[in-house]
């Protein structure tokens, strides 16, 4: 039969699976061939019948609900996930506590440094930097008797470049202390001495701190025999350290 070659492709033609060129050729043939057009019509109606008959089953409302409950994300977190969250929360708390402690400690320390620097600058700017003017440590030390609740030793400055200019009473954090002023090569250095326990200093402060950052002066501070010493000035760090060592040796 003439149409046999066409009929083998009739299903593919009706399923839209031929190439555009083949589709155009098929369209032209079907229009002019009564046998193929009748066959095509029959098959189209069959396709339509299968489509309508095939859409037969609809899920029940109960099944749909059950499926939605099954498939929907479970609100309860898994045991492992809860522990993960707990662990993360714990880490965050610990890190937060350390960070807060560090920040508070650093903030408190910076505040003390700032106040010490202020005392140094304010004293030098004062018209009367010292209340007891003497280069003799045996004069200056007794002057503090009855004015501060502790005693301390002043170093012997013989054979050093340092010279004592005098002393005055000072306060840090509402705590009375001794403020001594030394001179080295026209640089003034303040030495402040307080009772350690009277100062509300952070527990994390080390025994000895050298030249803290963010301070416009060189400074050294340490704790010795229950006293807190601060040596601060615009002299070199080496001079500050030498004076500090003299005090440490005297105490």
């Amino acid at each position, binding site marked *: 039969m003439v149409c046999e070659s066409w009929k083998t492709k009739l*299903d*593919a033609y009706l*399923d839209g*699976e031929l190439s555009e060129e083949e589709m155009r050729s098929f369209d032209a043939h079907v229009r002019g061939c009564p*046998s193929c057009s*009748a*066959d095509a*019509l*029959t*098959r189209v*109606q*069959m*396709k339509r*019948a*299968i*489509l*309508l*008959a*095939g*859409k*037969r*089953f*609809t*899920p029940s409302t109960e*099944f*749909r609900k*059950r*499926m*939605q409950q*099954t*498939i929907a994300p479970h609100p309860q977190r898994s045991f492992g996930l809860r522990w993960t969250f707990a662990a993360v929360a714990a880490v965050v708390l610990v890190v937060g506590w350390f960070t807060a402690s560090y920040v508070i400690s650093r903030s408190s320390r910076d505040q003390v440094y700032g106040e010490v620097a202020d005392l140094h600058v304010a004293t030098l700017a004062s018209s009367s930097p010292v209340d007891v003017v003497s280069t003799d440590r045996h004069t200056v030390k007794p002057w503090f008797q009855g004015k501060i609740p502790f005693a301390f030793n002043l170093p012997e400055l013989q054979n050093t470049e340092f010279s004592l200019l005098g002393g005055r009473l000072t306060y840090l954090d509402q705590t009375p202390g001794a403020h001594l002023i030394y001179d080295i090569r026209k640089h003034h250095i303040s030495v402040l001495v307080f009772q350690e326990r009277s100062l509300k200093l952070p527990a994390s402060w080390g025994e000895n701190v050298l030249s803290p950052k963010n301070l416009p002066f060189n400074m050294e501070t340490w704790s010795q025999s229950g006293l807190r010493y601060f040596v601060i000035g615009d002299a070199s760090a080496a001079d500050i350290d030498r004076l500090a060592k003299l005090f440490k040796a005297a105490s």
Partner: protein
Amino acid sequence: MPHFERLYNFACWLTQDRQEAEDLVQETYTKALKGFSSFQQGTNFRAWIYKILRNTFLTSRTGLKASSTVPLDFELEEEALPTAKETPESILLQRSDWQRVQQAMERLPVAYREVLLLCEVEEMSYQEISATLDIPIGTVMSRLSRARKTLRADLRPGASRG
């Protein structure tokens, strides 16, 4: 739930049992969710999920039984159906009820039923059907052809009902 109603319909046609179809659909979605990482983005999602359903069905008791009775493609003899002699009136227009078509579809071997449903009801391309059933396109075409001929023969007036 994408394709939920259509998957359920397809599952009913495969299992021919609503309870089994519900189990099949549920298992299909569970597997799809678990194995979603295996779905390659940009590929055909519909073919992927239908494939899961169909493979799940084939490993079920009903599926194993149904597939074991499927005639192999080469075993089906080409019937010289007198399609040209039949007019549309002789096949379909005489029947106003869809029940006969449905019953004829139910009688089809599952291998023909599924390919016919994917083509005519799901309106998948041969390529999609090939991906879903994991068979070559040539096999899709030959199965479709045989499914249609079998159905047509079954719907012929006076055809014996198996």
